[in-house]
């Protein structure tokens, strides 16, 4: 799926069954083909220092699902627009 679609951005939930978001991000970043994909992590619960942790393992941002979703869209817009101007 990832190869077929090759997304510009992935919105990735952290708490998932089987493999969690952190595992996914590690796998993605380990593969040179997918390492450049921007990833925004989503969390349902507040994690202390979560943002720092997220950024340190290669995520572009961390979004709290409890926040207004407009923030999510703004974040997505900003990330993808950045890419254009770069």
């Amino acid at each position: 799926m990832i190869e077929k679609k090759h997304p510009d951005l992935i919105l990735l939930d952290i708490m998932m069954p089987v493999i969690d978001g952190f595992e996914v991000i590690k796998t993605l970043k380990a593969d040179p083909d997918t390492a450049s994909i921007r990833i925004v992590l989503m969390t349902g619960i507040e994690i202390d220092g979560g943002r720092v942790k997220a950024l340190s393992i290669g995520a572009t941002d961390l979004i709290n699902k409890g926040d207004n979703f407009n923030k999510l869209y703004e974040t997505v817009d900003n990330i993808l627009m950045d890419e254009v101007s770069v």
Partner: protein
Amino acid sequence: MKVRTKLILGFSVIVVLLWGIGWFAITSFGNLNSQFSAVEDTVLPGTLAMKDVENNANKTYDETMAYILTDDTQAREAAFLYLSRLQEILDSYFTQVATDTEKLQADLAMATKITDFNFSLEALIQQKDDGVDPDELLRRNQITSMPSLLALQQEVSTRIDLYTEELTSIKTDFNKTYKRSQQALYFSIGLMTLLAIIGATIITRSIVRPLHALHKGTEIIAEGNLECKLGTKAKDEIGQLSRAFDQMTQSLNSSMTSIDSLNSEIAERKKLEKQIQKQVEELKLANDKLMELDKMKDTFLSTVSHELRTPLTSIKSFAEILLTYDEDRDTQREFLTIINDESDRLTKLINDFLDLSKIEAGRMQWETVELSLTPVIKQAINITQAIAKEKTLEVSFTETPNLPNVFCDKDRLVQVVTNLLSNAIKFNPESGEITVKTEVVAEKGKQDSSMVVASVSDSGIGIAPEDFGAVFEKFKQVGDTLTDKPKGTGLGLPISKEIIEHYGGEIWVESQLRKGSTFFFSLPVAKRIEESEMPEPHEEEEVVEVIKNKKGKKILVVDDEENIRIFLSHEFKRKGYTVFVAANGKEALDMARKQHPDLITLDVQMPDISGFDVTSVLKNDNDTKDIPILILSVIEDKDRAYKLGVNDYMTKPVDNEELLNKVNQLISKNRKNILIVDDDKSLVKSVRYHLERRGYLVSAAYDGMQLWK
């Protein structure tokens, strides 16, 4: 030496001396006595005897002469009587045996003379008896008796002279002895007196001195100096007393020291007790505070659950109605609107609650910038304009020129002002007035620490003075809670308080019941940054770049206000865009379909068809749904806009540079591919919907493994 011994010694010395003197005196008197005895034994009887001899001899001679001349027999008997007496004297005298030779010879001579005299007279008397002639007898007498008498007389006189001489020598001796005794006596008395004085002095000293020292010591101790030590070496009772005294002082001193240490210990303990007392009080206070907090927490929780349940109840009941009954479309829409509004309220409540918790827990991330209050207030006015218009309220804002900047988190400050404004709107009667003002208040004597004060006044129901503090407390809506009053989360003001206080400001209220309230907040003036330090915008460079990239891009400007259309057209053309304009919704739809622009800027409040409606139509049309829409409006209603699929939203008045940047970004956006990975299917659905509306291509996966399938 013991005092008793000393005294006994002293007395003994005196007694010995007395004995000495007595002995000397006795000896002297013995001497005198013996001399006196010598006189009595020898001189006196000797002399008397001589006198007796001379006397008797003379009387014998006289009586003999009388007999011779007168023949008187009586005279003759008398002469014999005296002769016998003379013989007696001689016998008695010579019975005493002379001791020394000289005396013996003298005695013998004496005895011879007396015997010669006796013989001559006896012979003479015999011759008379024989009848010898008296003249012859006288003549004979001249030859024999007379010389013997004379010799006797001479001898007697010699002997008397001898005795007198002896007497004189004895007298001299006596005088001598007497004088010597006297001198010796005087000397002994003097010596004894001296010795007595010396002995008394020594003894007295040895007794009095330590006593004196002891006395002094007691005085010193009486004054409180326990370091005093007598240190006597004497071995007598006073010495013992002194040592006992020293010992007593020492033990007193040590007990005083221990009392001192005990005292300090007691003081220490008291201090400790006080500390403990203080701590206990502090603990009690803390405990009270905790109890209060606990109570507050309970109240808070019950309030929160109440506040949460209220909108939830509405949502649930209306959702149930919709699910159960087939209402007509308008009713459905009405109910859905209620559900939506209540959801918004719920969301806001939860967000407010989380904000407050974050601030209180110190986990809020502040994005502090230097900013001016004026644009912040304008933005807040824009945001609240929609609800103000519903109640036909006027919000008037008087700008203060050259208002100093403050340090704050911009979004949070907007939140504060919006809160105050929406409160003012909520509690104001219809057609009332709301005034926003700003001013600079300088603290006395401190130019650097002046504050920017903003105020929001309403003409609403007002607040009682006793509730001034309570309005800033969580979940408190003051006044009668049963009356129908505008609903709120009750968290707006507490959050505002936290925000303002975080930036060193204050928030307060002044109010009169039924006359309206004024909410104030102050923020410290930020240090002015000189004009020259302001970063120069690199506008020219960017413009060139923009023109390069955006050449030939088309923008449709939609606004019912002609001035705004002209202004926007001018700005966009200047940057090299091709611009189309539309004055109302209908024109806008036509133009969009005809020209298929790369971007539409859209006003919301327009006659007949609103901006939202235009958006809704365009985003539901496959031909136009990819056209990015940027809303430019005085109304802040982002939520609704984004739900409709608006790509971006800006509130007027718009910062030109920001607008051009946004436009630039929106136009250059290609269709981006976004992948959502989440096991929450309803969330995926909702997010996917919104993202697609915003022009993205969206795919979804429900677990991590799907990515590599």
